[in-house]
């Protein structure tokens, strides 16, 4: 933070010198003082990393501390500050009150088009997971726009170019891609090794293959994340992780089932090529909200309008407040027109037909509940800021249309959902896999505990079926020792990243960030902090078809290789690199700013 206050500090020291009495206040002296204040003195570079405490995330703090120790070795005073998940997201994603954060990227950034909201400069001032870094790069902007409209080889080449640019300019440093470790009760029935608990569909699969040990068929999930017990608003930025639970409460038009985007709330989706492309969507028959109102095409149209602008303001005068969480999807939709109760026409924005189906994955919200949430949010009747009620409401009780409905919650402790009788997914002829069509549970309960160790023990004691949040590698022996408990390790799509606030001094300099990234040994982090339950990577699209070959990990980072070996920093090499970047060292401390 030091350099932020550098000018006032200098002024202050000059004033102090003037006031000290040693100086006679003459015109010449004041002239000299003015001259002096024009020169900024060098300031030591200090940084602060905000992240989660160990109770909330098994690795984030250890990663941050390891990084801080490398930065300190490089002469940069670095502080680590832990805070609750909700608070961290509020400070870094909504208020941009951060220099660096260590967090896991949401899963949605595995889709190349989602990178648009993550990195396009148009979103640099937008809240949520929309360019929280404030990254502005015209080359990247252009590539992001082009990939939307291109197809085939051209889209691939554009995306590869984009990823190389991002890897070099480092709006964030990808630290490591962890494996998600979970403890599960073996007797609960399903083949845990293929169950994917990151998505609502994964939970549906679990619900379909569940075998209860007792009379009651309740799928019991234990988690360390208490946010879902206090807020079930799918649009609330700081409360959502993967949206698995809200995805059970709300239905999208289409869901990805076994890797394939399948019509869900829609009975059919006919994509029409064209410029721009469009789609005729037919909803399933007789779909009802959990409060028994009928779900119609008007609700779908309303949802897209709401996501694009939660104020639903008609006139051009008022500022729009789009939903940050679904900005990528809603920006793909140009217009939705209702044909009749069950049919609607979606006109997409100017984008390739391979890109647009993503727009169909947003949760459909009931108009009769959300129409009242378009006003500016107020505390005690007094409007605060410009944010709408839709974005900050805790939405409890939620009225959805999904296969599970809300029953009750105890804030910070528990949440209970019950299966909806007669949900369309379980109707005859709906043509879903058996595990969706024939669910084996009546309810789903979520219980919050203090840390991953306690979560594992809760499963080991037979009081829960699975840990909903991933647990740390340190609990693996404990899971192994426990009878009837299975260790589930799955590759995850949510890398840990060190995000830079590129609006801040020094961090606004791509060369500085590039050099910082070379002070981080990703391989060492994976092997030592995550005990090998991780793999290093360069960009968030790693492992997808869009990832360029030359970014593959090759014994080291191919773009920003570590200065040193096996976690040992070569301090001389770092200093040389920072000096080349225009920085200097004073008593071993990195100093910046012009002299």
């Amino acid at each position, binding site marked *: 933070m030091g350099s932020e206050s550098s000018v006032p500090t200098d002024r202050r020291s000059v004033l102090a010198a003037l006031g000290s009495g040693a100086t006679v206040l003459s015109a010449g002296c004041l002239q000299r003082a003015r001259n002096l204040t024009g020169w900024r003195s060098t300031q030591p570079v200090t940084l602060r990393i905000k992240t989660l405490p160990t109770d909330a995330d098994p690795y984030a703090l250890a990663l941050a501390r390891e990084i801080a120790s490398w930065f300190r070795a490089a002469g940069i005073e670095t502080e680590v500050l832990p805070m609750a998940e*909700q608070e961290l997201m509020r400070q870094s994603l909504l208020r941009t009150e951060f220099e660096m954060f260590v967090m896991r990227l949401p899963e949605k950034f595995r889709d190349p088009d989602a990178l648009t909201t993550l990195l396009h400069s148009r979103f640099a001032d937008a809240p949520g997971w929309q360019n929280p870094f404030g990254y502005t790069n015209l080359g990247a902007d252009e590539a992001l726009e082009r990939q939307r409209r291109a197809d085939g080889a051209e889209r691939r080449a554009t995306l590869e170019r984009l990823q190389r640019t991002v890897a070099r300019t480092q709006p964030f440093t990808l630290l490591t891609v962890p494996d998600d470790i979970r403890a599960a009760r073996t007797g609960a029935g399903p083949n845990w090794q293929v169950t994917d608990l990151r998505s609502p569909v994964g939970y549906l699969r679990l619900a379909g293959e569940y075998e209860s040990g007792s009379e009651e068929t309740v799928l019991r999930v234990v988690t360390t994340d208490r946010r879902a017990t206090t807020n079930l608003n799918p649009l609330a930025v700081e409360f959502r992780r993967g949206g698995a639970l809200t995805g059970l409460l709300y239905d999208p038009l289409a869901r990805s089932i076994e890797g394939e985007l399948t019509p869900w709330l829609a009975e059919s989706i006919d994509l029409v090529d064209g410029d721009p492309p469009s789609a005729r969507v037919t909803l399933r028959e007789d779909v009802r909200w959990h409060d028994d109102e009928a779900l119609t095409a008007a609700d779908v149209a309303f949802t897209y309008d709401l996501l694009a602008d939660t104020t639903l303001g008609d006139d051009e005068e008022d500022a729009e407040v789009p939903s940050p969480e679904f900005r990528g999807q809603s920006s793909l939709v140009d217009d939705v027109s209702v044909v009749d109760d069950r049919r609607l026409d979606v006109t997409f924005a100017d984008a390739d037909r391979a890109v647009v189906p993503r727009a169909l994955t947003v949760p459909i919200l009931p108009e009769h509940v959300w129409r009242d949430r378009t006003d500016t949010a107020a505390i005690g009747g007094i409007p605060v800021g410009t944010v709408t009620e839709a974005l900050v409401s805790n939405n409890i009780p939620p009225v959805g249309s999904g296969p599970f409905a809300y029953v009750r919650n105890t804030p910070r402790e528990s949440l209970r959902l019950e299966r909806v009788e007669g949900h369309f997914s379980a109707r005859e002829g709906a043509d879903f896999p058996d595990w969706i069509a024939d669910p084996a549970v009546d309810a789903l309960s979520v219980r919050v505990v203090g840390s991953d160790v306690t979560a594992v023990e809760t499963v080991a004691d037979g009081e829960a079926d699975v840990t909903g949040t991933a647990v740390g590698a340190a609990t693996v022996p404990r899971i192994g020792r426990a009878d009837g408990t299975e260790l589930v390790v799955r590759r995850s799509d949510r890398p840990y990243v060190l995000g830079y606030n590129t609006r801040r001094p020094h961090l606004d300099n791509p060369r500085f960030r590039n050099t910082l990234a070379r002070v981080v040994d990703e391989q060492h982090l994976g092997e030592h902090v995550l005990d090998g339950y991780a793999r290093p990577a360069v960009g968030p699209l790693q492992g997808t078809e869009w990832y360029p070959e030359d970014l593959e990990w090759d014994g080291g980072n191919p773009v920003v290789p570590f200065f040193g070996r096996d976690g040992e920093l070569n301090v001389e090499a770092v200093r040389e690199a920072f000096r080349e970047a225009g920085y200097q060292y004073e008593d071993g401390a990195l100093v910046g700013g012009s002299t």
Partner: protein
Amino acid sequence: MSLFTVLTDVVAVVLVLHLLSLGAVRRLTGRKFRRGSLRENVRAVGPTAVVLGVLLLANGAVRDVGVELSWLIGVNITGAIHAVEGTFVADLQSIASPELTAYFSFVYVFGYVFLLTFPIVLYALHDDARPLAATLVAYALNYGIGLVCYVLFVAYGPRNFMPGAVESLLFTNWPEVQHLTSQVNENTNVFPSLHTSLSVTVALLAARYRSAAPGWLPIATVGATSVAVATMYLGIHWLTDVLAGIVLAVFSVAVGARVAEGRHGDEPSATETDRRPAGGVIEQFRR
């Protein structure tokens, strides 16, 4: 093992400790407890006890509010505390052994509850109302000031800040107990350590009113020291929290004793004839 089992365990163990200690104190003092003094004392300190009760209830009720408020207006001092004291807790943990962990875990959970509840029983049966009144006032101050500090300061304990260097010994060896601790506290409420401040309060009061139950002072002293060390040994509190806890205890006892003696008379009671001088800090807390 669920929350209920942990809770019944705590109640059972603490009850046993109570009975054992009452027997021991009776043998040491050689006096019988008078039922009459219990009734008189309850009447005398009634209002104070109500205040403490209300405060404890409020503490439970506003805990969630307090946390929300704390994130809104509190200062996150975790980094500052670490900058001040560095790796003290990690160094302390280097002496860790299974026996010590078992001892300190026991002290942290059972010993602490016993240490807090026993003086109430002991002083309630004593024929002077002042020790009981002082204890209740001091407890109320501890909780009240502690609550304000928890709103003003957000801090995570060493186990949450230095994974790897500091182990969360209590919760890794005895995970079930987290069901209990997460019911009564938040992991951001570490400054000051109320475990330390309340235990030290008990020890200071034991010193001040040691004539009421001479055998209690050494137990309370060992207990309070063990609790203070346990909070650090188990990775839950920083040294800074413990020191702040001691300061809070000294303040609470000073005010508590003044209030009690102002209200219930200052003249020494019949049983307090065997006063002996004590040195150091403790002396300041004797009248």
